[in-house]
């Protein structure tokens, strides 16, 4: 098994980041973000690599990774659908939307489709209450003011 290693770009970014914070430990979250972007998820080997890079115990990295919800501790589908189900979205039909997406894809919450295209998660408030219901995909793009028709159209666009 080959240990994960940062690419050139991330190594350069890492050196830049060092100048911005008074301690190396402060880079834990930013470096984990870089790791997730490069490797797709934070495997135990990635944790070991990050720990080595920051000169910290692996247990510290493990503690941080498992505390914050946005770090993936297992592989996800190509499109990780993060559907908000908190109150403002709930009041505008997010529960039905969530069920609809699960049913359409034939998966349970947190499951990935067999073709590895989609993973569906129920998430907490994403600060999009005025444009509810909504979902975020891969910790990036927001899709707002959703309806079942709209979400169907979005999903069929995603390869």
């Amino acid at each position: 098994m080959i240990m994960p290693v940062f690419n050139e770009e991330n190594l350069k970014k890492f050196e830049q980041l060092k100048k911005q914070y008074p301690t190396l430990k402060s880079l834990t979250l930013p470096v984990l973000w870089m790791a997730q972007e490069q490797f797709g998820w934070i495997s135990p080997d990635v944790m070991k690599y990050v720990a080595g890079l920051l000169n910290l115990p692996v247990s510290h990295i493990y503690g941080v990774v498992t505390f914050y919800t946005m770090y993936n501790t297992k592989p996800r589908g190509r499109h990780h659908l993060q559907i908000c189900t908190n109150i403002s979205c709930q009041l505008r039909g997010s529960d039905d939307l969530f069920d609809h997406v699960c049913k359409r894809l034939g998966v349970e919450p947190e499951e990935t489709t067999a073709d590895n295209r989609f993973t569906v998660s129920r998430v907490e408030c994403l600060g999009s209450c005025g444009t509810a219901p909504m979902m975020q995909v891969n910790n990036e793009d927001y899709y707002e003011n959703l309806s079942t028709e709209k979400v169907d159209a979005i999903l069929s666009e995603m390869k």
Partner: protein
Amino acid sequence: MADVLEKLILPDIPDLHKIEVYERHGGYTALKKALGMKPEEVIDEVKKSNLRGRGGACFPTGLKWSFMPKQSAKPKYLCANGDESEPGTFKDRQIFEFNPHLFVEGALIAAYAMGITAVYTYVRGEYAKWIRILQGAVDEAYAKNYIGANIMGSGFNVEFVVYRGAGAYICGEESALMNSLEGDRGYPRIKPPFPAAVGVWGCPTTINNVETLANAPIIINRGWEWYSKIGAPKQPGPLLFGISGHVNKPGVYELPTGVLLTDIIEKYAGGVPGGKKIKAVIPGGSSTMWLKGSELDGVKMDADSLKAVGTSIGTGGIIVMDEDTDVLKVLQRIAHFYHHESCGQCTPCREGCGWLEKIIGRFIDGEGTLGDIDLLLDVANNIEGNTICALGDAAAWPVQSFIKKFRNEFEKRARKGPAIHRPVHPPHLVTP
């Protein structure tokens, strides 16, 4: 003052996120003006303006700034709180998107006033798009020497870092935010010591909400007298009200404090769809006490007025529920949120929030008994005030206010017939 107000924080100017546009509309003149003043004069100006924090606690901003030691062997830091995770709150996002330079300028003014050498802006991880916009604004400001070394020849130096969180509501709590910034799990710290004495990396620190800091350039440019006449005298200024749920035009509305809640709902947010009646309103984000639909008349949206009706302004995130809402399900969703977001340090919160969710769930499943209502209240009362940070209180308050105002919702869903014998009860969490 009339509720017609020139939009100060989110003016309708296209491309205001670009520095040239921002400068053309008077951008960074407040910073220039502040750099010509003595730091204590800047603090004094903000003090006199009566600006109070926009993150929920409504603490007087100028007073907070004055707590920072004037002389310090260690560097001093400013943390701008853009974690914005309270359900119903989506205002800082508007600032990042439409007027990021106003916030940057405000943070720089605050830094100068307190002799701060670095500003760390903590933005919730989900706001990837808005982090990019903010970083763009910061880069532009660096290029124009509004940030960096010897700013505009003043001799004042400051660095500006944008930090991405990774999904944890608790990191909006100021001491959890500092721990997160240090690379740790977001565990709140016991106070004292207060951040002005021992903050991030053990150095004097001030933590201000993003919206709070966005008010600073306005105060410096227009003067405290002008500013303090906007809205409610004890908590003046423009405020970004976010309104969501059952209204026709949900969104963020910039209005003076003290505006009528019914005006925001009817006049600005276009009323309730289908002309339905309102069953309940959460006035300031999920942690604030609920108001019944029949209690809304005459309620003004400022810290003191809302306190007088037994709730609080919180983050200004208003959530409206129409008469057909299953409010018990909404309450359970709130309880689930706090259970999920409890950091797990304090037993009353870690265990109690789970119990709150479970007991409310019993009623939804038709299994709850009348005794469970008292049990629920007992658990909530034993969380409140018994935890390191306010997350426990935030979980308890909605439940307490709900039982007070909507007890009948539990009663009509309570199990008919004999009570179910349950051998296991949650332990009393605190011994007096």
